């Protein structure tokens, strides 16, 4: 965060900074930034001031060097940058390699950083460095107070042999010419060194004390305390421009020639000396009245002054103009209105109303017949100006500028407290007041009042807009918005706001006919019958939004307690389309630092800002009117943003960033700093960053120029910083970041580790299984052996059993063939006998006896069969 002390002031007519086009309505002004020990400089005595090749401004102070990008000063001192051999550098010499700063015994090369520091103690004994120049070869020539010139080549000093002036002298300064020629200013004349031919010659009187040679080839000036400022032509003839007596207080080391061939210098007593066409002007900035100016840089419209005691002052044209009319000076400005004749009417809180036209101001107050000096609203209708106040409306004739009448409660108004007067396209004049007062005069001058229900009898109606479809929308305090068509109230609609926020200060209809309400709780968008709120967390500077005004180009301006805030229309469109709660709008704030008379704009007036017919936005503030020329915002942007990656901070260690960032292993927190060098308008930028390109989410960067990262996992990243100017993409800056993994964090290590573990596991498992398998095989063999022996036993048993059974079977068979057959055959025989009974005579037994014998035999057989069966049953086990 920086908190520059800022001053702004209307320039007097004799100001040297006639930097702007003249305007009949608007006069020019400047803003001055002071950078001193309250906001970033270590100390307030500036010894040297120069811009490096990258655009950084370097400031030498007693307590170290400061590199400045326009918004954040960065200190280089011996403590934080041990490369420095000394703390105080007295002089800067701008060269092709960068800025060489000289101290008592060392010199340092500066460009973005301190690139190199060279110990010069071998040439600075009893003396000090007065002049330095860098040759095309890169070698340095260094002149000393003791009159010597040394060449520094490959870090080796050698005294320049052909520099051998006859008189004892001191080298004062160098001025490099084309063709390898060098002018050497000394206490005893001006010399030309021919570096190619290694020769020298005196080109002036030996009596010339050539204290300072400055300017550019073709416009070379020499200052001497005796002869003043002389111009040196090609033949080395001197033509006096300013005699010394006119500039006896000049500080020679501050002398410069600007791009318009004007000579600038600081006075040793007070202020600045500006010499143009030989005429000496002196002027003093009130802010710097008590401080001498030691160093000056004039660059385009900006003036950089190094002071003794007030640090660095940057004076630049204000982006916001102020009205120079004494009558409006520091007045609390209320409603501003532009009439059809292009006159602008400006109301004040307690100083009446003022008409501005063609550079003239005409003021009216209560002595001229105004109801009172406080103005709440201004409008016009039928060639008359209507100035509303807390006690009614004063009617002013546009032509005669005289108060010709009034409109009050007596004429039918609900209240004398007037909030808004507004003419619509039907040529009706609308008047909004307290106590639910919505009234209008129709095109015929007939007065009407819109009846609201008793619920609204205390409602204050404060803002009004006719939409493109001729509907009238009226904003209120606490009761939302009222829709009116053809003089009839259609509906009242509340806004999704808390009671404290529910104040509709202004209404804006965009090009897509969507409505935007400036309220005390942010900007409420009404799109497709749905409300959506743009709050402070989405990028608006303050919750209360007093006005919303579209410019004639690509932007919309809102005003609030912090000034005016510019939104590119594309940003509002982006808000319409986003569903992201973290949406953050890219905006540009115009406040006092850019020339607003006061950062606090006024609200609860109507209109609370206007865009005039020529594209200017007029903003009423508590201390005057700010006028922004919105028509050429983008034209102010020259070239791409000067973005520079700066340093990588790892704890105490600082490393300049080149084309990539490598975070060493084990480091978890680091900071990446960058610069956006801009001395014109650092406010114009909105920055966002992201480190993971997979996400669409860009994180807003507020004022800081340092990004802190913590806990990034090892890997490759791309840090992207998106730079927007006035809400439009300027560039996306990228830098690769490689977070190195500690050995144990590397993928290779992890893979190897896993492989080793797997191998180990494999061997363990294998070993285990080998043993296990052996064991199990052995046990299997044992088991099998046992089983086999058992089986063998069983087999033996079985064999025995089979043998036994076989025996039984044989027995059965034997029985079958013998025992069974015996009775069977007997039975057959008896049966045969019976058959042949009649034939046989020798039987000797009766038939009955034979039959009985047969039956007995069969019974015997049956018994045998049964025995056999039981035997066979015994076979089963």
């Amino acid at each position: 965060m920086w908190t520059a002390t800022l001053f702004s002031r209307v320039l007097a007519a004799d100001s040297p900074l006639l930097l702007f086009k003249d305007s009949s309505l608007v006069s020019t002004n400047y803003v001055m930034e002071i950078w001193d020990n309250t906001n970033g400089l270590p100390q307030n005595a500036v010894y040297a001031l120069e811009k490096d090749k990258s655009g950084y401004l370097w400031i030498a102070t007693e307590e170290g060097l400061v590199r400045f990008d326009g918004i954040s000063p960065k200190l280089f001192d011996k403590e934080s940058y041990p490369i420095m051999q000394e703390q105080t550098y007295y002089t800067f010499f701008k060269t092709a390699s960068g800025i060489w700063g000289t101290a008592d015994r060392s010199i340092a090369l500066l460009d973005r950083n301190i690139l190199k520091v060279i110990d010069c103690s071998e040439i600075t004994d009893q003396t000090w460095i007065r002049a330095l120049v860098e040759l095309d070869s890169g070698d340095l020539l260094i002149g000393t107070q003791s009159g010597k010139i040394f060449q520094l080549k490959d870090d080796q000093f050698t005294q320049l042999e052909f520099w051998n002036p006859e008189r004892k002298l001191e080298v004062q300064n160098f001025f490099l010419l084309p063709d390898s020629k060098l002018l050497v200013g000394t206490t005893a004349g001006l010399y030309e060194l021919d570096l190619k031919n290694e020769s020298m010659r005196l080109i002036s009187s030996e009596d010339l004390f050539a204290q300072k040679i400055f300017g550019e080839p073709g416009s070379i000036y020499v200052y001497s305390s005796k002869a003043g400022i002389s111009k040196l032509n090609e033949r080395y003839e001197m033509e006096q421009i300013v005699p010394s007596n006119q500039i006896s207080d000049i500080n020679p080391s501050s002398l410069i020639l600007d791009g318009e061939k004007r000579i600038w210098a600081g006075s040793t007593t007070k202020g600045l000396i500006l010499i143009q066409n030989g005429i000496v002007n002196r002027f003093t900035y009130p802010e710097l009245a008590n401080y001498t100016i030691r160093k000056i840089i004039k660059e385009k419209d900006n003036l950089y002054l190094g002071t003794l005691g007030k640090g660095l002052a940057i004076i630049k044209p204000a982006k916001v103009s102020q009205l120079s009319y004494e009558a409006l000076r520091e007045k609390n400005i209320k409603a501003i209105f532009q009439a059809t004749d292009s006159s602008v009417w400006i109301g004040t809180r307690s100083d009446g109303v003022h008409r501005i036209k063609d550079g003239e101001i005409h003021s009216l107050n209560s002595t001229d017949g105004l109801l009172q000096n406080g103005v709440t609203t201004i409008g016009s209708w039928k060639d008359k100006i209507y100035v509303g106040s807390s006690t009614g409306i004063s009617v002013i004739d546009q032509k005669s500028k005289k108060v010709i009448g009034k409109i009050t409660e007596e004429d039918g108004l609900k209240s004398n407290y007037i909030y808004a007067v507004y003419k619509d396209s039907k040529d009706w004049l609308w008047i909004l007041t307290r106590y639910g007062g919505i009234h209008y005069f129709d095109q015929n001058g007939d007065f009407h009042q819109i009846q609201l229900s008793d619920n609204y009898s205390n409602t204050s109606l404060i803002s009004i807009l006719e939409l493109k479809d001729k509907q009238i929308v009226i904003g209120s305090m606490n009761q939302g918005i009222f829709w009116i068509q053809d003089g009839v109230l259609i509906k009242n609609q509340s806004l999704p706001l808390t009671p404290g926020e529910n104040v509709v200060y202004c209404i804006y209809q965009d090009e897509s006919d969507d409505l935007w309400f400036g309220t005390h709780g942010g900007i409420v968008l009404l799109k497709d019958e749905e409300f959506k709120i743009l709050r402070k967390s989405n990028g608006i500077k303050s919750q209360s939004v007093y006005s919303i005004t579209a410019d004639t180009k690509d932007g919309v301006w809102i005003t609030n307690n912090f000034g005016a805030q510019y939104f590119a229309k594309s940003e509002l469109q982006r808000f319409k389309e986003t569903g992201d709660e973290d949406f953050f709008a890219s905006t540009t704030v115009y406040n006092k630092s850019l020339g607003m008379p006061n950062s606090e704009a006024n609200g609860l007036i109507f209109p609370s800002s206007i865009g005039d017919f020529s594209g200017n936005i007029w903003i009423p503030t508590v201390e005057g009117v700010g006028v922004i020329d919105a028509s050429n915002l983008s034209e102010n942007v020259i070239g791409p943003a000067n973005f520079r990656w700066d340093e990588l901070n790892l704890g105490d260690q600082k490393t300049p960033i080149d084309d990539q960032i490598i975070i060493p292993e084990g480091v978890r927190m680091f900071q990446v700093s960058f610069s956006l060098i801009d001395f014109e308008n650092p406010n114009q930028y909105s920055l966002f960053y992201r480190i993971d390109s997979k996400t669409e989410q860009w994180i807003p960067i507020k004022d800081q120029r340092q990004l802190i990262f913590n806990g990034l996992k090892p890997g490759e990243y791309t840090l992207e910083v998106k730079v927007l100017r006035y809400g439009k993409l300027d560039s996306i800056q990228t830098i690769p970041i490689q977070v190195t993994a500690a050995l144990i964090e590397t993928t290779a290590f992890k893979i190897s580790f896993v492989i080793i573990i797997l191998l180990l596991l494999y061997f363990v498992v294998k070993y285990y299984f080998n043993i296990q398998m052996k064991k199990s095989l052995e046990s299997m063999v044992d088991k099998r052996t046992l089983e086999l022996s058992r089986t063998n036993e069983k087999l033996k048993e079985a064999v025995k059993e089979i043998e036994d059974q076989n025996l039984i079977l044989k027995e059965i068979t034997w029985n079958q063939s013998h025992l069974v057959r015996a009775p069977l055959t007997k039975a057959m025989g008896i049966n045969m006998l019976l058959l042949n009974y009649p034939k046989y005579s020798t039987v000797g037994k009766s038939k009955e006896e034979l039959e009985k014998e047969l039956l007995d035999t069969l019974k015997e057989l049956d018994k045998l069969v049964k025995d056999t069966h039981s035997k066979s049953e015994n076979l089963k086990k």
Partner: protein
Amino acid sequence: MTDTKPTVLIIDDDPGFLFLHKIIVKEGKLDPNPMTFIDARMALEHIYPLDINSTKFLIFLDINMPKMNGWKFLEELEKNVKRADIKVIMVTSSLSKVEREKSKEFEAVIDFWEKPMEEPQVIALQDRLGAWLGE
């Protein structure tokens, strides 16, 4: 030429078969009065005293007998009877082929019949033996 008729002996441990075979031998006109022995040893005792050149014995011999089986009987007969002319027909209820083969080892065994003996077998035997029967 001889005019002596052989004595028919029927040896069987089962009285039923002795009875039955006796009838078949009678009815087959082989011998009107065959001798029956329930014990082979008794049959041997009957034969030994009649071991002279002119005696003939036709023996129907059962094999499976408890006190002395048919084979034992044959062995004793071969060992002790030298002169008497003896022909043996094995009559058995056994179906054993082994026994049939074994019977061929004995010179006196001329046939191997399965029980029960039948009349046509006896008639066929008379045709076969013819003159030896002394007709």
